[in-house]
């Protein structure tokens, strides 16, 4: 699949296809996907291409089409030393207003983008999750607020990598 600029015609078509696929699956598996979630999924297309890019800067560009500036209003809670690279708890929160998404990247992973969260109006700009880290690396949190990108980063030491058995 090719990466397309958000909002392009090509993308819209793909979204509809994906929505249709979800509905079809629901029909087969007896899973109760209504029309609303299909549409919701359509509004939040899975950014497949951005997850396949190497390096933090390129991944941010692929995901958002712009660059981020550092901000001390983006707070990240991550361990100094991860107990195991397979399960690294990372939380991001911000005091910025009008947040629409939060993404987390691990610079040294094969593909930097780990997770990206859509924050609709009414949802707190705060998320916690658990990520895999191949080795010691900077972890970068990106907050999209008011159409701009803000970032924070922290080094997490990994001595038992999360990519082995």
């Amino acid at each position, binding site marked *: 699949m090719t990466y397309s600029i958000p909002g392009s015609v090509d993308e819209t078509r793909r979204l509809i296809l994906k929505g249709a696929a979800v509905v079809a699956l629901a029909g087969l598996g007896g899973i109760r996907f209504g029309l609303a979630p299909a549409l*919701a999924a359509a509004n939040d297309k899975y950014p497949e291409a951005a997850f396949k890019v190497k390096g933090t800067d390129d991944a941010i560009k692929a995901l958002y089409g712009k660059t981020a500036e550092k901000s001390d209003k983006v707070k990240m809670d991550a361990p100094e030393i991860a107990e195991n690279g397979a399960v690294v708890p990372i939380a991001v929160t911000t005091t910025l207003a009008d947040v629409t998404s939060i993404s987390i990247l691990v610079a040294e992973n094969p*593909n930097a983008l780990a997770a990206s969260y859509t924050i609709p109006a009414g949802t707190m700009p705060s998320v916690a999750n*658990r990520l895999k880290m191949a080795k010691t690396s900077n972890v970068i949190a990106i907050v999209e607020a008011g159409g701009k990108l803000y970032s924070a980063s922290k080094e997490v030491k990994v001595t038992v990598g999360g990519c082995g058995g």
Partner: protein
Amino acid sequence: MASTIRVRATSSGDTTEVQALIQHPMDSGFVKNAAGALIPPHFIQQVTFEHGGKPVFVADWGPAVSKDPYVKFSFKGGKKGDELKISWVDNKGVSDSSTAKIQ
């Protein structure tokens, strides 16, 4: 088959805190099995949380999210007894969904 989704949603005041744990291998595609062959990537791509028919949180995940992924967030609104719907779909098109009552 038990659901792959565990959710705890608790309302306090005007916010609802949601924690979810999903049973999924989240194979990255970079790990070899005992025989030395690469285990093909198999990971959840998108999780949607809905309250009152509207998405309150959407997670896009790559293979770097840990096995049996966990996520926590909070949203405004949501009363005790309200339903929260969670659904996920992975890169092989497998999906599951579940509904939890806000406590």
